[in-house]
């Protein structure tokens, strides 16, 4: 009887619930993904699934695996920033679906300053932050003063930013391809320094200080949300904006500020990716960057906790990267995206499972 009670109480702790719910989501996602693979071609399903899960471990030689582990981390940093962007807004009762657009603007400004004006990395980074912040701020202003739903405004702004950035970056693209010029040859100062971190990952030069920086920012977001006056005000505004107004908080300013900070985070995320040199922007892309949307799943998978986000962002980047190792002889090229999408989709169900657990605990 006593142990049963304790067990029940253990299940009622918020953090424990989140971890369990997150694990259930991951397992369900993997299971459904596996079933889909079985339906398409049963022969390669197991291999495909293990290569997605193995990701960099796909390479038998440890130093190669380590190098690719570094690349996954390099891409986790920007995803973590997008996750924090979504999470920050969500805590204040706003849904920042515009993270993708803010991310695109961040990428655009960072790369343009780097390639057109040879600016150093920190200037590019700050510009990316400001650009993302301004775009987020626009959605915030529309919401605060004209009561335009931030989701609608965000989606519209996503497309506006994507094509504006495509247009801007066409000026600095390689003449023979649709990609922007490589930073390494054209603007080496714009590359984020590694400070020796690359040595730890078999000289993977994409491993930069962006990775520890992203973790530090996650911790900072946690501190701001749970320890500061600003966090107290912002959460109060999100939970009950009438009470916030009654308590003399500037609820409109808080909304705009929230969206601007969320935008800064997403914009900075783009700088983390593109200024590491791991990818170049394709000026012909017709879809907004997936980072912003994967951030939604990562935010929920991480239980809407900034520290949890560090792990969830890594997991989602892990399977996204792992998807590229699926045998293309057995499955068509799109399969990797499809399977990661299914898993990511299930990651969004954390709150649902938490709700179910709570209901059970109550009875």
């Amino acid at each position: 009887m006593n142990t049963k009670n304790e067990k029940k109480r253990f299940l009622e702790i918020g953090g424990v619930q989140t971890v369990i719910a997150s694990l259930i989501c991951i397992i369900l996602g993997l299971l459904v993904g596996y079933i889909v693979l079985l339906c398409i071609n049963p022969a390669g399903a197991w291999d495909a699934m293990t290569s997605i899960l193995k990701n960099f471990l796909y390479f038998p030689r440890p130093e190669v695996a380590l190098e690719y582990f570094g690349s996954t981390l390099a891409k986790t940093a920007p995803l973590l920033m997008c996750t924090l962007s979504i999470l920050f807004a969500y805590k204040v009762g706003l849904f920042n679906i515009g993270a993708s657009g803010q991310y695109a603007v961040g990428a655009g400004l960072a790369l343009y300053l780097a390639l057109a004006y040879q600016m150093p990395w920190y200037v590019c980074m700050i510009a990316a932050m400001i650009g993302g912040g301004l775009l987020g701020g626009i959605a915030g202003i529309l919401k605060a003063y004209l009561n335009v739903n931030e989701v609608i405004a965000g989606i519209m702004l996503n497309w506006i930013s994507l094509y504006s950035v495509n247009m801007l970056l066409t000026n600095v693209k390689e003449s023979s391809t649709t990609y922007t010029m490589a930073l390494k040859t054209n603007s080496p100062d714009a590359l984020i320094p590694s400070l020796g971190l690359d040595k730890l990952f078999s000289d993977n030069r994409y491993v930069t200080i962006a990775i520890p920086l992203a973790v530090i920012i996650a911790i900072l977001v946690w501190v701001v949300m749970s320890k500061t006056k600003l966090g107290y005000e912002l959460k109060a505004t999100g939970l009950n904006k009438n009470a916030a107004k009654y308590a003399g908080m500037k609820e409109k300013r808080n909304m705009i500020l929230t969206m601007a900070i969320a935008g800064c985070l997403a914009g900075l995320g783009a700088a983390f990716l593109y200024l590491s040199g791991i990818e170049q922007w394709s000026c012909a892309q017709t879809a907004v960057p997936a980072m912003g949307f994967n951030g939604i799943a990562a935010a929920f998978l991480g239980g809407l906790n900034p520290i949890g986000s560090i792990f969830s962002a890594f997991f989602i980047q892990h399977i996204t990267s792992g998807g590229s190792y699926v045998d293309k002889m057995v499955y068509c090229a799109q399969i990797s995206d499809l399977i990661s999408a299914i898993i990511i989709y299930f990651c969004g169900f954390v709150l649902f499972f938490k709700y179910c657990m709570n209901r059970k605990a109550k009875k």
Partner: protein
Amino acid sequence: MGEYAVEMLHITKRFPGIVANDDITLQLKKGEIHALLGENGAGKSTLMSVLFGLYQAEEGEIRKDGKKVEIKNPNDANALGIGMVHQHFKLVECFSVLDNIILGAEPVQGGFLKKDEARKKVMELSNRYHLQIDPDAKVENITVGMQQRTEILKMLYRDNEILIFDEPTAVLTVQEIEELMQIMKGLAKEGKSILFISHKLNEIMEVSDHCTVLRKGKYVGTVETKDTTPEKLSAMMVGRNVSFKVEKKPAEPGDVVLDVKDMTVAGQNKKDAVQDVSFQVRKGEIVCITGIDGNGQTELVYGLSGLEPLKSGSIHMNGKDITKASVRERSTSGMSHIPEDRHKHGLVLDYSLEDNLVLQRYFEPQFTSKAGLMKRKEIREYSDRLIEEYDIRSGQGSSTIVRSMSGGNQQKAIIAREIDKNPDLLIAVQPTRGVDIGAIESIHRQLIEQRDAGKAVLLVSLELDEVMDVPDRILVMYEGRLVGEFKPDEVTVEELGLYMTGAKKQEV
């Protein structure tokens, strides 16, 4: 077949940190009106939720017509003929009255609504029980009284035999309450069994046959109403004798604290909600603004507290012009505001009690460091002190989530917060709404203590007892204007009623 329609025997229901119902027994006879009396947090709502299938009791059993039944959800309750009118109506605002009544129990044939049949049945019920409704009016356009009649018809339409009324008079006008009492008596005469939850003693005395009293989750007793008095009932409910008459010394008004001149505030529609209102509140007096709900009192307070801008006119506090001051500036320069709607404005329900207790002062240096970090230790100490001093009861003290607290204790928290700010002007809007007798007494005492301590108190209230007992001056508001000013001992309730309904007017 026993004589009881419903019996709840030895019901026990626990929540984390609290026993909401502790071995409670309630037996409802066929065709009677049975009142359930208790303070806020006494366990009335929990008990009814158990009967209605929203909660499962840990111990005890429920019997219907002498047979043991299991009620796992509201559908089970419905199937057993148990219906409930909730305190906050559950109607679809943009649907017609008729649509709301049949919602969920629509007569259909081959997928098509048979509305004519439904209408016939509803109108028959309406005539039989004298429940006047306009079946085609949209719910958003009808009075609160008619909304309630719609809720009652909803239960009757489903052939419910046991009707639960959860504090049905809280939202009604005096006339509507009288009407409801007649309706309830009529329903009982027709053989329906009624459970009537209330903490208004005069209503219980008027309509009920039996009264069961709960206190702090425990069963106190069941009495025959005709053998008891309001004084005895309130003593059972509170556990001590309660004075109904508010004791106070004559007021000694001092300097003017609040000076309002020609204040006009825009309304929802084209018409201004407050028109050219002027009045003063002095140190050491309680001024009460009263009137029928919706005559501009809400907007008047919004204008005073800075939640809405003024269209014209001016507000001075302690001689300083605060017409254009922000909510925060007004608050820090000595205005406290106990808001009308505690859930909408007064509290962040999902915040802890301590975070709510510092809602008006969290930015002060004693609670926030220069670096912008919240001083959690100081906040906890402050909150613990207020909880102790103002007797705020909750499951887990300072860290209780306010949403889980009872309405009366939520209100106590707001009052503690606003009074402890040590304001020059205390604006208290409906401070005793939905609060039980014991708490009402203490709230009235606190208002008078504030007055005696030399504060200016502006009370806005619809409760006539409160209007007659507490203030030193009464201002009546009708259609956005002040239409009368009285001293409480120089006016009768009937006279006030005439001003409140616009039948009489003075130049103020």
